[in-house]
C-alpha cells in the first residue's frame, strides 16, 4: 500500500474494480514475507503479481549498471545480481504459492535464464523487456548523457544480447515500453541529478523490429497479444478477425527512416536520429484512425 512495500493494498476492492495486475513498479516489494502474502491472496483469484526486481541493499544509491563503464566513471552502480536475486526469490515464492508472477522490464541475462527454467518447470511466469534494453548497452552511458539514464539501468552487451535472444525464443513474452516522460529541466542536468526514464512509445515497434527482428506472428504476439493477456485486458491484443474489436496498429516492416521529431510533449528520448527499420503507419481504435504518418488524428474518443 502506498508503494511502501509494508502492507497489502486493498486487493479485493481493486479486483472488484477490474484490476488484474498488481505491482509496486518504480519500487521493489523487498519484503519476502509480504510478497508471499500477496501471492497467496491472489493465487486463487488468478491475478498476476508484477515485480520491479531490484535488491535495495545491493542497488544502494546505484545510478548505472555495475561493470566496466561504471568502474571507469567511478559512479555508484547496480550489479545485475540485484535484479537476479529478487527474481530467484520470487520464483521460489511463486512455486510455493502457485501464484502467477510477471517480471517487469527484465534487464539481465541471469533473469532470462531463470525465467526459462521456471517455464520449463511449469510455473505460470511471464516477463517483459523494454525497447531500450533491447536497443542499447551501457556503453551509451559512458558519455554521461542523461538521455540514457533509466531504471533498471542499461546493462552490458552480454545482457542486451541475452534479452534479444530471450525475446526471440519466447522466454520473454512481451515488449513493454516503460515510457517515462520528463520535463526538459529534469534531464538538462548532470547525469547523477537527472530523472530516470526514456520515452519511445511511438517508435517501440520500429525499434524492436530494428534491433531484434521477429517473424510477423511472433512480433505481433510479443507486442500486443502477450501484453494484453498478461495484464488481463481481453479487449486488446486480439488477432484480426471478424467480430474482434478493431484496435489496430498498421506496421510497415520495410520502411527505413530516421525519426527527427517526437509527438510526445517530452523529448527525453535517445531514439531521435537513430536509423530505424519499420514504421507504424497508422493506429486504429474501435475502427477510427487515431494516428497516421506519425501524427495523432483529431478524433473524439468515446469510452
Amino acid at each position, binding site marked *: 500500500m502506498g508503494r511502501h512495500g509494508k502492507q497489502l493494498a486493498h486487493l479485493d476492492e481493486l479486483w472488484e474494480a477490474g484490476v488484474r495486475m498488481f505491482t509496486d513498479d518504480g519500487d521493489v516489494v523487498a519484503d519476502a514475507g509480504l510478497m508471499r502474502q500477496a501471492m497467496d491472496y491472489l493465487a486463487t483469484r488468478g491475478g498476476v503479481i508484477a515485480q520491479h526486481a531490484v535488491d535495495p541493499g545491493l542497488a544502494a544509491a546505484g545510478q548505472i549498471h555495475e561493470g566496466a563503464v561504471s568502474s571507469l566513471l567511478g559512479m555508484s552502480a547496480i550489479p545485475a545480481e540485484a535484479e537476479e536475486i529478487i527474481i530467484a526469490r520470487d520464483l521460489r515464492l511463486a512455486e510455493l504459492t502457485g501464484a502467477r508472477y510477471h517480471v517487469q522490464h527484465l534487464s539481465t541475462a541471469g533473469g532470462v535464464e531463470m525465467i526459462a527454467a521456471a517455464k520449463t518447470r511449469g510455473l505460470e511466469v511471464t516477463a517483459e523487456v523494454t525497447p531500450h534494453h533491447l536497443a542499447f548497452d551501457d556503453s551509451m552511458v559512458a558519455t554521461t548523457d542523461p538521455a540514457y539514464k533509466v531504471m533498471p539501468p542499461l546493462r552490458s552487451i552480454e545482457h542486451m544480447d541475452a534479452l534479444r535472444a530471450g525475446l526471440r525464443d519466447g522466454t520473454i513474452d512481451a515488449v513493454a515500453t516503460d515510457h517515462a516522460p520528463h520535463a526538459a529541466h529534469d534531464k538538462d542536468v548532470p547525469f*547523477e541529478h537527472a530523472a530516470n526514464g526514456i520515452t519511445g512509445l511511438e517508435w517501440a515497434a520500429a525499434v524492436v523490429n530494428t534491433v531484434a527482428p521477429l517473424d510477423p506472428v511472433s512480433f505481433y504476439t510479443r507486442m500486443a497479444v502477450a501484453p494484453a493477456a498478461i495484464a488481463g485486458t481481453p479487449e486488446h491484443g486480439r488477432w484480426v478477425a471478424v467480430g474482434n474489436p478493431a484496435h489496430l496498429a498498421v506496421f510497415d516492416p520495410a520502411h527505413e527512416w530516421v525519426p527527427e521529431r517526437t509527438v510526445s510533449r517530452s523529448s527525453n528520448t535517445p531514439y531521435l536520429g537513430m536509423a530505424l527499420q519499420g514504421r507504424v503507419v497508422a493506429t486504429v481504435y474501435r475502427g477510427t484512425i487515431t494516428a497516421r504518418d506519425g501524427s495523432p488524428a483529431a478524433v473524439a474518443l468515446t469510452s
Partner: protein
Amino acid sequence: MNHFLSTEDTTREELTELLDDADSFVEVLDRPIPKVPALRGKTVATMFFEPSTRTKLSFEKAAKALSADIMSFSPSTSSLSKGESLKDTVLTVQAMGTDAMVVRHQATGAPWRVAEWVDQPVLNAGDGAHQHPTQALLDALTIRQRFGTLDGLRIGIVGDIRHSRVARSDVFAFNTLGAEVTMVAPKTLLPTQTDGWPAKASEDLDEVLTELDVVYLLRVQAERGGASVFPSLSEYTTRYGMTVQRFSRLKPDTVVLHPGPMNRGVEIAAEVADDDRSLILEQVANGVAVRMAVLFRLLGGEHDE
C-alpha cells in the same frame, strides 16, 4: 585541445607538451616577480560546486601568475541555494564575460555537460570519483622532475581507488607517459571491473612494495562510508598504510606522493610525510605550474614572455 576534461583520451604528445610548458612556468614562479602577461585581459571563472581549498587556490594562483582576471564562485554563497540550475548558473557567469571555466562538481560528467552548454574552454577540476586531470599532470610533473622521465618507472597507487578521481586520472596519465602502474587496495576499494585498464591490480602492498619506484598513497576517505569497505582504520593502516617499517623496505630512490589532504597516522606515518623522499609539497607547488600550462594552452595566449 578545446577543453581539458580527462586523461583517458589525452595523447603522450599532449601530456608531454603540457609538462614541458609547466617546466617553464616552474621557472617563472621562481622569479622575483613570478608573473607573466600571457593572459592579460582574459577572465577565468573558477566554478567550484563542491568545496575545495587547495585546487581552487591553485587554479586562482595559476590564473593570476598569467595575469588573467578571476571570477570566483563557491556554492555556499551562490544562487544555487535559491534553486538555480547548474545550466543557468554557468550561462549567467559566461554572460558576464568569461574566457574559460574551471569546474569542480560532485556529479560525474558535470564538466562535460557544462562544456556542451557554454562556448568557451572548460577545465575539469574534479568530477565525482571520475576524473581530476590537472592533479594527474602535477603528479606526473613531480615524478618527471625527480626521475627525468616516467618511462619504465613502476608506480604503485595505493588506497581507495574505487572512489578516487585522482587514481582514475593518474592511471591513464602515468601509463600514457610510459610507466607501469599497479593499483593496490583491498577488493572493496578497487573498481569492480578493471580488465581494460592499463594497470595491474594487487591486494597485497607488501608483495609489490620493493619493486616500486613511486608509491602514490591515496587519502582514506573516511566520509565515504569507511566502515563498510574496510573493517577499521587501524586494520587499513596495518595492511596498506605507509608505516615507518614499510618505508624502510622501499628501494633507496623510491619516492612517496600523496594528493592531500593527508590523514597522518592512517595512510601515511608522520615520519614518512616529513621525509625528504616524500614529495607532497613539491606536488602542491607544481600544481600551480601545470594549471598555468593548461590555461595557457586552452586560452591560446600569445608567447610574449
